[in-house]
């Protein structure tokens, strides 16, 4: 079984700060990590490999330093890593990104046919959830998003049954391989990297492909040119004119402040008290 897992190196958004005066992102010192959502897909891919044998190739598009993120995946048990990196990719939106990654997956497939492609549910920096469906469409793969569980995989029959999170319930879907899966968060727990695996990963020669090596012929479809969306402006949030009315704890007791707050809430929202009382009755 050959599985390709697409991952992205992202800044750890929990640590990004916005400059209070200039409203610009302060990127200095923000560590780069593997997009956390991708790791659920990596773990699921490794489990398929445990079960059926075969290999897991991790793939990313990004600047040269993104190879660190791929090495991390090697340390968890991925067999091979490809980084598609080229200045021509700069400024790509999700449509152009899916084009480039789809081309690279086709190239990887020439070495060994691909049975399953995984991507994360979404990234934590872009949060679009569009690249996975885009790759599936471009490669003509069956798309299975928000998968909470792989129920059954029949490698001989080339069929897979999964559970997919939908609004108000779970869909049970059966489809043919090859397919593209995006895993839902908290559906599995990533294994630990062993020390020998970490040493192996540190020295692993990540393959770096230019656009030509990734099999991309049409430069109109990548980077800024291949991106239909245009970012027209980036700005900070508008501060609300009225700031919160602060209730002082220092001058009065916690109980008084609480009762005072209740009065204010019920005055501001006159129907709330009745709503709460009705809820109590039911």
């Amino acid at each position, binding site marked *: 079984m050959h599985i390709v897992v697409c991952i992205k190196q992202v800044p750890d958004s929990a640590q990004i700060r916005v400059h209070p005066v200039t409203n610009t992102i302060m990127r200095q010192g923000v560590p780069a990590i593997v997009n956390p959502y991708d790791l659920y897909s990596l773990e699921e891919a490794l489990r398929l490999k445990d079960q059926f044998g075969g290999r897991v190739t991790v793939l990313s598009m990004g600047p040269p330093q993104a190879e660190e993120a791929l090495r991390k995946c090697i340390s968890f048990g991925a067999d091979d890593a490809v980084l598609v990196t080229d200045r021509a990719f700069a400024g790509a939106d999700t449509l152009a990104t899916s084009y480039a990654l789809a081309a690279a997956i086709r190239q990887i497939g020439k070495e060994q046919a691909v049975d399953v492609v995984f991507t994360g549910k979404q990234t934590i920096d872009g949060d679009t959830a569009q*690249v996975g*469906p885009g790759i599936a469409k471009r490669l003509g793969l069956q798309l299975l998003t*928000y998968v909470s569980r792989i129920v059954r995989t029949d490698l001989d029959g080339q069929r897979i049954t999964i559970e997919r999170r*939908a609004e108000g319930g779970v869909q049970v879907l059966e489809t043919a391989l090859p397919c593209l899966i995006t895993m839902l968060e908290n559906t599995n727990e990533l294994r630990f990297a062993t020390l020998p695996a970490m040493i192996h990963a540190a020295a692993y020669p990540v393959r770096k492909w230019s656009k030509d090596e990734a099999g991309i012929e049409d430069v109109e479809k990548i980077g800024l040119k291949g991106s*239909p969306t245009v970012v027209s402006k980036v*700005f900070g949030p508008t501060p609300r004119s009225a700031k919160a009315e602060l*209730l002082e704890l220092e001058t009065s007791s916690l109980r008084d402040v*609480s009762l005072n707050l209740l009065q204010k809430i019920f005055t501001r929202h006159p129907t709330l008290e009745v709503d709460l009382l009705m809820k109590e009755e039911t």
Partner: protein
Amino acid sequence: MTAPAAPAPAPAKRPAGRAGRNTELPEHLKAYKGVWVFIEHERGHVHSVSWELLGEARKLADILGSQVGVVLLGGNDEALETYAAEAFSFGADKAYIVHDPVLKGYRNEPFTKGLTDLVNKYQPEILLLGATSMGRDLAGSVATTLLTGLTADCTELNIDPASKALAATRPTFGGSLLCTIMTLAYRPQMATVRPRVLAMPRAEAGRSGEIIQDTLGMVETQIVTKLLDFIADAHSNRINLPYADVIVSGGKGLKNAENFKLCFALARVLGGEVGATRPCVQAGWVEAERQVGQTGKTVRPKLYIAAGISGAIQHRVGMEASDVIVAINTDPNAPIFDFAHYGIVGNAMQVLPALTSAFAEHLAKASRKVA
């Protein structure tokens, strides 16, 4: 005698904008008119995000001087015409309906074909979908098939006065900043918006519209993916944050999972739900369904109590439409106090129990009065 006109400059092969950007709309795409909403329904129930989008679509169409269309795809026995009538009451002018047995229950392949074909045939300028598990799955596939721009999880939609393009605003960089994105040289311009981000429009009884029936042209044997079953969530373990009246949310200021019990205690007294910020969910303190914010749920309760939450945009965009916002934080400079209505500068671990007993006492007293 007029001098022979200078030869017109050869048209550029591609609209050349700044740094090779695609900023000019080609002539053949100028015929695209109208604002469309994909109506999401599942087992006899239309998702309210579709109506929320319809309210916004009406506003955009009025600015553009165009019409609002809705797309309804479903099985032969599904009441799509009833949903269309409801859509008309919320501001739609036209409803494009496709009934086909293969459209019973959502699947990517037939729905992508159905929506893509309708777009190619009737050429809407703007196409909006709910950012639900169905809408996101479908939008990404349709946009890639149509090779057009798609902006996910918008928090605001407008028409750019200069270009008349859809100006879609969404948080970026993990929610620390906002950005406005436009699709200038491609049609339709696609966007998704999450449930509860937009207000529910008011229905106008007696408003009517035109129904256009179309066909799918696909049979079951052509579809690879089979829907074997749908397991509805048990009602008891359904956490319905987006439509809760009261939400008590905790942030990293609560220090550990154990202290979330204080939020649950207050929520119980108020008959509300417990929410959380992304870091708390990532730390595994509470379930992912409880996450409020750009990558979690958008909520608009009557009362939102934020305990130990600093108020990053990521969180703010998910809850700032709440009627009353109360913030508890030890840092008087926390951004949460910029948009909360009331604030208590203090330790949430002490304030939450005090509020819980104050509310319990007050409600007990008030209910005796009523009785």
